[in-house]
């Protein structure tokens, strides 16, 4: 019985992230519009967009290969698996030991690998420019992320997110190194999700664009899958920050029904606050030139590195 229950909770987690992801996107758009004194699209607009895209025909470029057609599913699957492994409402899920935080980072890297390849498949200048910039950013964002993982793992003594979350719940303390890791993670999250100041999710046809340039040739259901994957990735990062740095409300392993509900509700509250903070930051800062971004990401890397170094010097930092 317990096994079936655990499996059900794990399944619920997978569905939960999938359903929640477009909502987070809707929240950010709504908040942003309100801050700019606009009414903004309805909260559920991302769902409608997805439904519309799914119903539309795919217009495929003439020389698109099989890789172009399979890449959206690969990207989506890798992102979904990664997002399902980050605790949202409960820790200690059935398959939480499948992959630790380093593996989650690498899963996202797999998704990016295929996205960049898909960008290059048609053979246009835009796809190439997007892929090239994405890989440049990744070359700094990924080590920064790993350094941040090091900090968290050295503090908590584990790279398993469930253990980290439970550790943070029971050993609440303010640490310099964790602060550095938080800043590093926020910068990485901004870059990885193509948010301002690194990229602008609301624009097309700007030479500054990165993510949008790679998916330029996609349409119909392929685009829907890719957009959903992007939304999942944003949710993943917000959930990650919430799970490591504000783990309160997470249902402990083998808990009953009501802690799970509490966990889900607190998680909703957390991502609402997360969306607000993200939008607040985005509206108060200008987009950077492409070649300023490596400096920003380099500073994230250095912060993560410094945090790790401090913990190597003394565990009490």
């Amino acid at each position: 019985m317990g096994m079936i229950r655990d499996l059900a909770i794990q399944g619920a987690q997978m569905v939960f992230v999938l359903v929640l992801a477009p909502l987070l996107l809707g929240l950010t758009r709504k908040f942003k519009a309100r801050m700019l004194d606009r009414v903004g699209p309805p909260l559920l607009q991302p769902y409608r967009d997805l439904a519309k895209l799914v119903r539309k025909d795919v217009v495929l470029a003439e020389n698109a290969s099989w890789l172009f057609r399979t890449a959206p599913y690969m990207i989506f699957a890798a992102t979904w698996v990664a997002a399902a492994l980050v605790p949202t409402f409960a820790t200690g899920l059935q398959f939480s030991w499948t992959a630790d935080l380093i593996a989650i980072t690498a899963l996202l890297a797999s998704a990016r690998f295929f996205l960049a390849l898909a960008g290059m498949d048609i053979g246009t200048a835009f796809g190439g420019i997007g892929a090239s910039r994405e890989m440049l950013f990744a070359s700094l964002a990924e080590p920064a992320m790993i350094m941040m993982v090091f900090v968290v793992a050295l503090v908590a003594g584990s790279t398993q997110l469930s253990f980290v979350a439970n550790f943070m719940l029971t050993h609440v303390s303010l640490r310099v190194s964790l602060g550095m890791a938080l800043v590093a993670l926020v910068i990485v999250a901004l870059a990885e999700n193509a948010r301002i100041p690194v990229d602008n999710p609301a624009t097309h046809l700007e030479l500054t664009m990165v993510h949008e340039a790679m998916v330029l040739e996609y349409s119909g259901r392929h685009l829907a899958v890719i957009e959903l994957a992007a939304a999942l990735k944003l949710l993943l990062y917000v959930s990650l920050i919430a799970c490591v740095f504000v783990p309160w409300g997470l249902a402990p392993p083998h808990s009953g029904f009501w802690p799970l509900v509490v966990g889900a509700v607190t998680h909703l509250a957390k991502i609402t606050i997360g969306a607000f903070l993200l939008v607040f930051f985005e509206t108060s800062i200008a987009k950077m030139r492409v070649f300023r971004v490596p400096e920003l990401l380099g500073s994230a890397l250095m912060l993560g590195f410094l945090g790790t170094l401090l913990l190597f010097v003394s565990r009490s930092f």
Partner: protein
Amino acid sequence: MGDRGIGAETACAGGADTADEGVFMPVVVALGSVAVLILVAIAAPLASRRPAIATPVVYGTSGLAALVLFVTALAALLGHLDVAGEVVLPLGLPWVGAHFRIDPLSAFFLVVVDLGAATASLYALGYGAHEDHPERVLPFYPAFLAGMNLVILSADAFSFLVGWEFMSLASWALVMAHHHEEENRRAGYVYLVMASFGTLMLLLAFGLMAGPDGVYAFAEMGNRVREPWLPGLVLVLALLGAGSKAGLVPLHVWLPLAHPAAPSHVSALMSGVMTKVAVYGFVRIVFDLVGEPVWWWSAVVMGLGALTAVLGVLHAILERDFKRLLAYSTVENIGIVFIGLGLALAFRTNEMAGPAALAVTAALFHALNHSLFKGLMFFGAGAVLTATGERDIEKLGGLIHRLPVTAFFVLGGAVAISALPPLNGFVSEWMIFQAILLSPDLPQWALKFMVPAVGAALAFSAALAGACFVRAYGVAFLGRPRSAAAAEAREVDILSRTAMALLLGLCLLAGIVPGLVIDAASSVAIQLVGHDMPPQPLFPSLSIVPVSEGRSSYSGMLVFIFILISSGLVIWAIHRFASKTIRRGPAWDCGFPDASPATQYTADSFAMPIRRVFGPVAFGSYIERWMPPPGDPSPARLKVVRHDLPWEILYAPISGRVSRLAERLNTLQFLSIRSYLSLVFAALVGLLVVVAIWA
């Protein structure tokens, strides 16, 4: 863990008696296979008049011999064969003889070498048919295989060095197979110089370890008591000797020249396998023969490894020649192996046996992984070369349409080499990260400061490897063809494809059930650091747990299954509920589709941002702009200047001095007989004076 000692499971019936008879000893089988390889090498020139027959015979026999060696070594490694006992042949130095044996360390590397050799032979059965000068390749190929196996089988310094030199010279001959190209002749020259230098360093290292009474057999060499300064010096010599063969920065300069110059199956062997023989030589000397390590050794090894990994991949990302790009990526991966070895040394000197076992297993695992995916990638490069005659990726493009099968396998190799789950490259790097996370307990401050930097370098090189292979694959295989050769490429033969499929299958297997490899390497870890990793049973845990359950775990198989299930789910949902229509149209490209493939992003433009960000530090690169004076209608020019710093700082001055000295000495060739006689006399007097002072 004591019950999992060396050959603990050898108690299989009959194992002991066969060893007594001495006929079925694994080492005898292995030596027999090596003898077959040497015989093939000798016979090949006789048959090379008829390449249509000689090619399949030579590669087929070599492949079979390698397969026998592989099976023997694997059975020995897993403990199914009794490996005790040495074979002493009356060859070599008369009072020493040639010693051969198989212990867990050599069994592991025999597995790596002969797996690579067997698949390369299979590939060559197809690929070798396109060879223009088979008589320049066929005799040396089996000799090369024999040399590599001899190095690993030998149990005394003399046969080790003979095997090493055999391997170097045979591979040199293969590098020079296409000697009509100027570039290859230069590669051959640089390789010969570096290989001789490396062998000299190893000779000195073994000489120091053998001591004044000349103990050459490894069995006795390991137990000698030595002066305290000596092991450090041996480490430096081993780094110079084995490191130059493996491609450690700054001794790597020959590698990106020589590896691509050889025919592709040989490139795969040189990059994937011969560098592992070098790693074996280093491990044998430093972990086994020289005695207890000192903590600063680990800092040197780790630091060089990190430098090698980062510089290797930065070079790779700017390279346009597909095979040279792969060679630079080999430099990177060797750096990762050395990072693992350095960590293992650090833990071993501080008596942290568990972490040491983790680090050394990770290093061995990565060595195996690299031999798998580098072989695959070089086979792919060879297939591209066969199909288009091009190595320059700027002239390729769109090959995924023309070579769909090869493109799929190379994509798999690119995923594996970029350390992405669920394939194998990720597992070994993940294990090294886990080892790094155990290192705050190291007592030395220098290591405490160094290890995080090494971790950052490892993460950085992994991310850059991803960028490098997106670029290589994206430019060569995706997009539109940039040349007529690429537009008319034809899929390669079935044997080449089978070899690639085999390697990709092994990459996947090692990625989703890494516990098999970890368990197989446990006896090696015991031999090297006196401890092994906890056993990693496939069921019921399905995941690898390097230290303890709560600390970290990773299950490649579950990740793979989840990816399959979730992509299956979404494909099903999409095809159930979504529009199924596909319309083909011209690329949108923001409304300005351009028919010319020249408008695509090129490899150089892809690498430009990375060059601009990291180039000034790594290569001292800058852009030279030349603007015509006002009124001059000639075009402005941009030139990217990129320095190969190790070459310019280290090698160019030395080679300049050597050639100047050689020019001076050149006059000695044209003296009169009187002058020669007086020179001889002076030399004689000089030597006698030396002897007089010595005595």
